[in-house]
């Protein structure tokens, strides 16, 4: 299969800068590269402020007006989304690419019944009549795990629990069977029992419709058993990519190693060991004055002299494992 077909969605060297009205410009994304294959679940792992949500919004061209994509391309099925007009984008948004936002309490309209909000997507993108739409919505509600879709159809968002609301948001996102769903921290507002539920709903959807899903989270444990590949982001750049077992079983970048260590620690199995939590000391760099060298260098335990001088290029310790760290340089 030729590469462009296999990777139906791709971000190439994307740079996004925010220009606040009163303040210094902030480069949120500084040359991000990511490829997504059809039907693949790709996770983006990174801490808040690393640019992962900017990447999600850029994909749908939903960045706020004071943000600007200064370089790079976002290719979806052979077309560069950055050059399309709003009119050309409209049939894509919600139909080909859709978004599940972090907080369904904010993304759902509190005055409209849940079922009608799902039907709205179908009304915008299909020629179904009202009765067909209703039938389709019931089908979608069943698909996201509601056993009594009639009750849910006529419920208002405030009458639903957080987990139910998130499932409504998922039904809305997959209503038109998009090729790519972007889920921005889909479980961060839910407790751990509901998190597993949402993950299984998303896995079911991928299985049935071969939907590619881009999941964004700061929690490595969300990706295990869920994402096929994981890209780790730090301070506006992707620093390591690998399959989920590779990233968690043998992390390469010191940042990923530290994160995996923390995630493995915050579990019940090692209750007796020590009192303090392992943590990465320090903060990620101020986005208004990014250092010239590796951005993780001030917090890195394996730093070398070269790390503060120039940004590490991509090394390939394994054929499938690009990583930006001088540790793996020849």
């Amino acid at each position: 299969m030729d590469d462009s077909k296999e990777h139906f969605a791709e971000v190439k060297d994307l740079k996004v800068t925010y220009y606040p009205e009163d303040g210094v410009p902030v480069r949120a994304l500084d040359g991000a590269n990511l490829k997504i294959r059809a039907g693949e679940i790709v996770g983006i792992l990174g801490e808040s402020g690393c640019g992962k949500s900017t990447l999600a919004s850029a994909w749908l061209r939903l960045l706020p007006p004071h943000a600007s994509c200064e370089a790079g391309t976002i290719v979806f099925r052979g077309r560069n989304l950055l050059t399309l007009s709003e009119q050309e984008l409209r049939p894509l948004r919600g139909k080909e690419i859709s978004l599940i936002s972090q907080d369904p309490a904010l993304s759902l309209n509190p005055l409209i019944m849940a079922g009608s909000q799902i039907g709205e997507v179908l009304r915008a993108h299909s020629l179904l009549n009202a009765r067909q739409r209703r039938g389709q919505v019931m089908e979608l509600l069943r698909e996201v795990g509601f056993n009594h879709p009639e009750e849910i159809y006529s419920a208002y968002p405030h009458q639903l629990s957080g987990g139910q609301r998130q499932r409504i948001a998922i039904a809305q996102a997959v209503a038109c069977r998009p090729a790519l769903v972007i889920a921005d921290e889909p479980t961060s507002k839910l407790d751990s029992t509901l998190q597993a539920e949402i993950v299984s709903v998303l896995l079911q959807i991928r299985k049935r419709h071969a939907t590619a899903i881009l999941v964004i989270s700061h929690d490595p444990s969300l990706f295990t058993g869920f994402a096929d590949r994981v890209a780790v982001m730090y301070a506006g750049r992707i620093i390591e990519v690998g399959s989920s077992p590779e990233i968690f079983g043998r992390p390469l970048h010191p940042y990923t190693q530290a994160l995996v260590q923390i995630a493995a620690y915050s579990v019940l199995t090692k209750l007796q060991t020590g009192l303090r939590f392992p943590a990465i000391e320090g903060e990620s760099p101020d986005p208004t004055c990014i250092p010239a060298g590796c951005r993780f260098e001030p917090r890195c335990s394996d730093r070398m002299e070269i790390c503060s001088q120039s940004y590490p290029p991509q090394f390939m310790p394994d054929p499938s494992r690009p990583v930006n760290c001088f540790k793996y340089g020849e």
Partner: protein
Amino acid sequence: MGSNLYADSPNDTPTESLLCVQALRKQYVRGGIWRKRVPVAAVNGVDFEIPRGRTFALVGESGSGKSTVARCVTRLERPDSGRILIRGINIAQLRSRDLLPFRSGIQIVFQDAITSMNPRFSALEIIEEPLLIQSQRGQVEYDRRNRRDRVGALMVEVGISPDWMHRSILHFSGGQRQRLALARALALRPQLLVLDEALSGLDLSTQAQVANLLLDLQAAHSLTYLLISHDLGLVARLADEIGVMSGGQTVEIGPTQQIVTSPNHAATKKLLAAARTATSAFAAATGEQA
């Protein structure tokens, strides 16, 4: 052994309890103008006790009533019935004027630091506000310079440079804001700190940093913590004792080790299973033994 602190307890002299909650009940009324008003029991019989200097965690699924307990203990809500004893004095039904001497001793930190702070304020203004209020009431006299020194010291204590005192809180990261919220809560030297999902919204590495900070602060000021969380895996590392809530009631209370190793109630088992599912999947992925 839950933690080192707990392990020593049998040999210690019996510690006096700082907070004791008995048969706490609180109802809210749902419905309104066009709908029938239906009472909903948010908290329906909660009992627990926290010895001074210890950490007690209240865990439960969302909707189990744990945040209502936090709001009652800090007396942001008046409970319908039951007793809240602070060093032996029942504050459950005190009028707001009589509550004043207790207010500074009990502080709360919420999940979302940004919504609990005025976005137009600087770090200095945020942290000095409780000091100002106390000065106005004439309880403690703080002049401008005293206040500034105290704010500086508090910022150092929570690990933020006092040089940033005049920055707007919008220029701080999520973890830093939660540190500022802790500094504000500590400004009046409380004995009891209620942390209502205070670690939940944070990134993993930030969460670990703030958890370590909580341990340091407790050691330095012999603080008593009431942790409210849905994440049993996280609080198990911090708490000496855990109370599990379900349907507005405490259904199981015990030392952390006992709750984690031999849970009795179905709600506890469910929370543990949720924590373990995430754990074992992750342990399998990282190649460790679950």
